[in-house]
């Protein structure tokens, strides 16, 4: 068959804000959405931006280079990084076991994973402190081998793993469930060992999801407050996290200082968000899905 070379008729591209639709209600729902978004999210966040722009970059830098603030930021970001890494490893393991293996009580275990989502952070905080305190059920055992968990950075780490775990599990779990068994079978028929199949066929497409889960757990850990402060001990320069320092500055009516720390943290969460979007864009190009 010959390919038609007839030029396709083109209209002058007309820009429309919205494609016409027969469904009603766009104006009112869109307007209401923008109104709520502005009142609840944009204006208050704008207030923070205004406040920190008054400080200027040099003002923010001044606050951040205060030794106590610097060490709090270092602790928040450093420990969160380690915790997110740990949560990703165990999260992957849990997701794999939950989707690939059948064992009694699987559904209950699956439901338990969401516990940190559902349990209020303050409750998680006092419970973790209790469990890992020197006289607590796990803390006492750790004490015997010379490890202090509660009231040290290790305590912060434990709390951050706790709240980060569901993110790590829930981002990879659906993708593991969607892996086409035939691909693994194809790999096996081509003579690959199980280990080679896992490394070369199964794992690579999961990398973006693992990275996304890691970034989410990291961002959550950096900002987390309630589940950490009870177990952390909150010793300045040792186990004091950045969000707590914001609260302290506020109680001292140092709004500028609080705003500066908040701006730094917000900046980091935006970078994380951006990273997640980049990962997903890359994943969509490379693997065709998010």
């Amino acid at each position, binding site marked *: 068959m010959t390919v038609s070379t007839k030029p396709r008729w083109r209209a002058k591209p007309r820009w429309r804000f919205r*494609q016409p639709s027969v469904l009603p209600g766009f104006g009112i729902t869109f307007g209401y959405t923008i109104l709520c978004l502005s009142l609840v999210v944009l204006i208050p966040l704008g207030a923070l931006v205004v406040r920190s722009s008054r400080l200027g970059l040099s003002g923010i830098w001044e606050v951040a280079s205060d030794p106590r603030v610097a060490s709090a930021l270092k602790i928040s970001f450093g420990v969160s990084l380690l915790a997110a890494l740990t949560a990703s490893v165990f999260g992957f393991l849990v997701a794999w076991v939950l989707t690939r293996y059948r064992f009694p009580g699987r559904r209950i275990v699956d439901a338990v994973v969401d516990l940190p989502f559902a349990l209020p952070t303050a409750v998680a905080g006092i419970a973790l402190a209790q469990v890992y305190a020197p006289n607590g059920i796990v803390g006492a055992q750790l004490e015997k081998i010379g490890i202090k968990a509660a009231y040290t950075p290790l305590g912060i780490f434990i709390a951050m793993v706790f709240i980060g775990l569901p993110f790590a599990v829930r981002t990879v779990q659906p993708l593991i469930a969607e892996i086409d068994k035939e691909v693994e079978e194809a790999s096996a028929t081509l003579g690959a060992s199980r280990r080679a199949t896992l490394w070369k066929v199964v794992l690579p497409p999961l990398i973006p999801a693992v990275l996304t889960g890691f970034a989410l757990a990291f961002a959550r850990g950096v900002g987390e407050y309630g589940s950490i402060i009870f177990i952390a001990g909150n010793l300045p320069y040792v186990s004091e996290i950045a969000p707590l320092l914001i609260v302290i500055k506020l109680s001292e009516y140092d709004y500028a200082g609080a705003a500066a720390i908040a701006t730094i943290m917000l900046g980091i969460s935006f970078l994380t968000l951006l990273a997640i979007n980049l990962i997903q864009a890359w994943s969509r190009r490379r693997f065709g899905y998010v």
Partner: protein
Amino acid sequence: MGGTSGRPSTAIRVEGLSKTFDTAAVLHDFDLDVRAGELLGLLGPSGSGKTTLLRIIAGLDFPDRGRVLFGGDDATGLPVQKRAVGFVFQHYALFKHMSVADNIAYGLNARKRAERPDKAEIKRRVGDLLDLIKLSGFADRYPSQLSGGQRQRVALARALAVEPRVLLLDEPFGALDAQVRKDLRRWLREIHDRTGQTTIFVTHDQDEALELSDRVAVLDKGRLEQVGTPDEVQDNPASATVLKFLGDAVEVEAIAEGGQVRVDGRPVPGVVAPAGLIGPVKLHVRPWQFQLTDPSAAHLRGTVRSSHRSQGRQRIEVEHGPGRPLLVEDFDGERYAAGHPVGLRIVGGYVFA
């Protein structure tokens, strides 16, 4: 065939419809008349604009330019609710949470109280429609409990319940398997013959359009290529596009002179060159417009490349110089082995200006 009704009054007319999505034109200055009571098939490849045309008639999409007339009245600005169209969606769009009876009664229940029939009347009409679609015992089932063909029939009954002035069907059999398609096709034709409902349906399947329609409108790239009875579009295709879309055809180099068309110096019977056309032309030949003959008396000569039999006829691919092999259909039953030299006589074909 000749199923056209004796009253050619126009039920729906579209004039100068243009529509673009983003920058691609979907419809370009499109005109079409739909006669009252006819079953019109909109046939075209995917992306030809046929579904968009159907949705514009229904009031589900809006043209950039042009008008839609219902019985002579401008309906372009009329909201979909007021158009009284029955639309059957490609994937049925049945309401999953409602029973079959509630689905069918939906349009009646949605009316304002003053115009709404009473409960008993609604029940009676739903019962009648269930009889019509042969699903009388299924009133309380849910869509998820029905087969694809049954869902399709419920969707049709739901559209008919509001007594629309036109029934619009978007790829009505697209999602069904072959046997169900055939049954439903016949059944739809029966329903149409019984109700006389003006009906437009969209399809990309030539057989479906040719079997079912009173008239077929062939669309390509947002333009109307031809509209006519199935016989008209098959016997006198208006363009090479229509010809190719309605079935296999091969192109043969030919010379037009004096109203005749010649291949290898021999005139082709039954083919008249369009007035004023002189010189080299392309002759489009259907597989059954070739006859196998003695090479010395033939228009074309070649060797058999392969042949296979299916449904009582033999399809032979004939190698003929460079380019694509000729496809020949033969009914006399003699088998030709690969490599066998044959001559081909052309007994018909089409030339377009």
